[in-house]
């Protein structure tokens, strides 16, 4: 079982949190802080497993994480999950394929800013990968297909009424000098999403 999935940046700012067991909000924040503290002091070339988050889990639980560009992806799992399997899921499936590629495909290109501004969308993608603490799907094509179909549905529902809102949001985006045009983070080439055609 996966107990929690946390994504936060190099400064410990949460970008996505998903707990599969209830914790009150302040406890959640404490867990994020603790996890960040544990994870951030580790070098990049040490192993990706960590025992002993005292707040979350217990002896049966492990933190499996991956540092990727400016983001940390942390899974808190118990012993029924295969360590390498989860790492594969983050590293190969979730990051390179599921996350990056899925995000890639769904957002065209991904960077931290996308996560910041589209937390809800990332949640929807994650929901197709992990459900209730168990891995739902590892097949990338399937995940992308389902996410796309749902987005399409959302678009068709939006129809006429959504058009003005989209327009406004595009205008708002245009006033944004702070979105950089090109960010080069680590080994992925990231382009800032082009503004929605309008």
């Amino acid at each position: 079982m996966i107990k929690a999935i946390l994504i936060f940046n190099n400064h410990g700012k949460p970008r996505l949190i998903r707990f599969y067991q209830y914790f009150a909000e302040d406890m959640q924040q404490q867990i994020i802080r603790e996890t960040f503290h544990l994870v951030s002091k580790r070098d990049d070339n040490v192993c990706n497993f960590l025992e002993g988050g005292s707040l979350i889990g217990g002896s049966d639980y492990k933190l499996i994480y991956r540092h990727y560009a400016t983001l940390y992806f942390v899974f808190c799992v118990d012993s029924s999950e295969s360590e390498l399997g989860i790492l594969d899921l983050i590293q190969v499936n979730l990051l390179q394929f599921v996350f990056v590629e899925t995000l890639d495909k769904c957002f065209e290109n991904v960077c931290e800013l996308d996560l910041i501004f589209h937390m809800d969308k990332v949640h929807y993608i994650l929901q197709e990968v992990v459900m209730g603490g168990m891995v739902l799907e590892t097949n990338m094509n399937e995940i992308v297909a389902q996410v796309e179909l749902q987005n399409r549905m959302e678009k068709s529902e939006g129809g006429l009424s959504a058009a003005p809102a989209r327009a406004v949001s595009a205008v708002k985006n245009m006033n944004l000098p702070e979105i950089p045009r090109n960010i080069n983070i680590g080994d992925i080439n990231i382009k800032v999403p082009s503004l929605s055609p309008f």
Partner: protein
Amino acid sequence: MALKIVKGSIDRMFDKNLQDLVRGIRNHKEDEAKYISTCIDEIKQELKQDNIAVKANAVCKLTYLQMLGYDVSWAAFNIVEVMSSSKFTYKRIGYLAASQCFHEGTDVIMLTTNQIRKDLSSPNQYDTGVALTGLSCFVTPDLARDLANDIMTLMSHTKPYIRKKAVLIMYKVFLKYPESLRPAFPRLKEKLEDPDPGVQSAAVNVICELARRNPKNYLSLAPLFFKLMTSSTNNWVLIKIIKLFGALTPLEPRLGKKLIEPLTNLIHSTSAMSLLYECVNTVIAVLISLSSGMPNHSASIQLCVQKLRILIEDSDQNLKYLGLLAMSKILKTHPKSVQSHKDLILQCLDDKDESIRLRALDLLYGMVSKKNLMEIVKKLMLHVDKAEGTTYRDELLTKIIDICSQSNFQYITNFEWYISILVELTRLEGTRHGHLIASQMLDVAIRVKAIRGFAVAQMATLLDNAHLLTGNTQRNGICEVLYAAAWICGEFSEHLEDPMQTLEAMLRPKVATLPGHIQAVYVQNAAKLFATVLRKHDGETESQAAQETSQLLIDRLPLFVQSANLEVQERASCILQLVKYIQKLQQKNVEVAEEVTALFAGELNPVAPKAQKKVPIPEGLDLDAWINEPPSGSESEDEKPKAVFAKEEPKHSRSRHTEVDEKELARRREVRKQEQASNPFYIKASPSSQKVYDAPGVEHIPVVQIDLSVPLKVPGMPMSDQYLKLEEERRQKEKAERKKKEKKKKREKRGKERKADSGPESEEDITPAHQVDIVTEEMPENALPSDDDDKDPNDPHKALDIDLDKPLADSDKLPVRTHRPEVLKSPAEDRDGESVPQETKKKSGKEKKKDKEKDRKRSKEEKKKKKKPKEVEEELLESQPEEAVQSEETKEAAAPPTSTSAEASDLDFWLSSAPVPPAAQEVTAPSSSAAAVDTSSAAAPESEPDEPKDTEPEDTKSSKHKKKKQKKEKEEKEKKKKKRHHHHHQHHGDAGGEDSVQNGTVEEEEPLPPMSNYSLLAENSYIKMMKEDADQVYDIQGNHQDESKVVVSVIFENKSDSFLKAMEFNVLDSLNSKLQRPEGAGAHDSLTVPFQLPPGVSNEARFVFSVQSIVMPQKLKGTLTFIVKSDESSTHEKLDFKLHFTCTSYLITTPCYSDAYAKLLESGDLKGSSLRLEGINMPFHHLLARICFHHHFSVVERIDSCASMYSRSIQGHHVCLLVKTSDQTVSIDAKCDEPSLLGNVLDEIKQTFSKC
């Protein structure tokens, strides 16, 4: 309309959306909290508006704020509102918010039940999906109970996307509502063989989670998982299965034997590291479960260790870490194979990665032996000095202590060395583990008598230098050590060389800065030392020293009398008064030493930590009974006297004790004795020690006496290193001596005693350097070796410890929605019918497994038959299978006795058969019986998915085509069958082939006549065939959209006195309907009925038909051929029959909700027709029940004498009925999108009612 929407959204566009909020927060870095609070105010305003889009937007923003740590539970109701929006966009937002912040304490959750149910049955798969995903995060016991049935229905949804989600969420439902596990399990099991890999993976996932907690209940699934393991290519699924096997093997060692080979193959073949690693892990688990010393498995161990070494040497830190992790598992059972890699592991101690160092430490724990303990600890001590981070250093410290103290100090040969290690450890700065060191010191000093002198000397030095320990800060825990030091010096003060000096050290003013509990010990032990000093100077008249001591105490103690700590204060003032009194006596020259010493006489014995718990309750003592009559009136909780002592014993543990009867006690005592016998440190109780047990005193404490050489004397302050050197020298010397002795061939007795616990290396060579008397901990006389205390009673998984192999009982049902009890008559009836098929499903699932084996066996059997045809058939049938099993079992040396239950022997059979993968078994079946084999192997996968449709009102007859492996079993079965047979007779007798007794009966004022769907198919003097209205129907998902399948169950009943065998079932296919034959069989080949019938026995077989068009009823001609075998002759017989497929049989009972129903009728796609029935004089609910039962409808709504009903065909046609009744006249208005189907169904309904 459109304009309004546009206008609304123009208003809306100046609301902040999520992106605006995020941007705003980023722009207000300085006053973020203030900015967010204004945003929350805005959100509150937005939530007050009627526009759902505005609300959804607000909720979306709240989700973001929740992530930042803001409590948004105040908006829970709004979230529910958004969840219930009809638009997917908003629904999704609502469910996301709910999944992030709802929990069991959220009270609005109970409002969501109906909404979720509606979403679950939504025609849009993504509505369903979103609801399932959301539910998985906030399911509560109530929701689980109310929705379990709906979710279970979804497990057979046509879309794999929904199926896999429904399967996964079942795990959450089980956790919250354990009663659902049994009814849902058969279907979950079916999903293991779902055609969609995603669904399959989900089912594996769920079962693995379940099995991990309660593995024994899932052992019977092993063959199925084995099959999956050998056939699946999905690494994720493979990993899960392999992990599951790892959990199962400890329970069933034979499973392990079967696994070794395929796992080894996987290890060799796979390129995926994750899979390789899990394989290695499971192989290790297997090796652990197998009794050690199996010679042929040493290769496997070697393979594992080799692979792990490769992992550890890998530059990838992750692999290194996992390699060490797995290595530690091997270590437990095969320490030798690991110990050869000590170099590698010690090397890992220097790794820069803390996780890896910790793992390596764990490994070291298991690698120590008497020989290398000192060396390893020395290495660790070096690391302690180097380690910079306190956490790692603390970890090292605890590990050193763990390593040394493990299994009762088994590996310590020299306790002086150990004490000095402990003393050295006290010099660590800022460690948190002072108490740990302290308890070790106490433990050693108390339990190792011989070391006391040395320990006391060391402790005295510690006390003398206490300022070094307390120097830095109070909060470092190391001062705890002083607690131990003071106590040891006091308790064993007779060993002190200069008690006076120690006493002085203990009463220094600086002591007052120590924590209270330590001061208290100081004061108390000062008194003990005082007693020692007095005794030392006993006899000397007017001893100056004694009086000086008294004066010292009188001078110093007032400091403690003023202590803020009550304990210290009390002890100090007591002792102060005592000393003052003694001083008076001393001045009068009275001998006081004797009396003072008497205060502290006697020795404290170590008591096992669980000793109190294990005292059995004497017979006749009821701890829960009132001693006096309870006081009248209610006494509130807080008035109860508070327990003075910690409540150590939860009540249930007591009651558990009382349950244990004498026999059990005796048995346990026996077990304990054996345990003790194998424990080298436990002195075998001599009869005398047992008897004098109750007598006070210390003589009875069991003490191990080990003959040893002279204790080492080390001059000066001992350093552990010196010991190491000395120890090495000593061993060298001993070795040399031994060699001499060996030459003289005088190598007797020596070491014999120690042989019992000889460590992994030849440790009998090493004798402890020290006189070690390890005093075992005291235990009550007839202590119970109860180790059940490990289980956490709050573990939710405990409730899931349910035996899944037991057939379902009537009580094992999922609750169904009951908002209109009247209408419910028929669904309730459905349910009753349903719970039973589940049972049969489960059974048949098992049977399928069995079938394969059986077929294999049968083929053998047939071969044999050919060889000796003259043998009496009957005998053959009974004896041969048994022989077969036996012969197979005898192949396995360690085949255990087969258990009597069918289930167990099922597994037994699978396990005991030669370790050939099942796939191969099927292939190797001889050609003579190829047809038979194929039938069942093909039928199994086909008929399994047949069963998902849950609401089928079907009868209880299941395929009982079991053949017996053992006589005993067979007899049992025979009985069952007879019962079944009897059962049949009964219902044919009273209802003329139409009605039968049903297992579940409906309780009501007017009981419903029992109904059955079995009708007579054909009959002759030999055999009777009963057909069940082909009601098990499903459409093949995906691949053949236009083709549907129908399963026909046929009961064959032998009416003759002869034995019926070689039954072959054949049907003349029509263009539209075809009997499904195994691949490779011709279009006119007949199917072999997979059983034989002894006289008077009936059994059931299922046949699958594929049907193209379902709008017309069909009749198929068929023939059954069989051989009648009586004692003197055998004849070939045949029986013709006609299979009648009614249109009804293509309908599936499908629940429908009134709103969806209304929409359907409004849509205008349906064409109408109507029917009038005259002269029906049965109650309306009976009428409805009949329609439901015989024609697979479900009641949508019922108002007085009017009801709407719904059903769906296997090809998706909707059929709606409106049934009205008045004065024996029933009118049925019907609508359907396929007029001819409707016409036929109505005709059939008419027919049903014309019969009664």
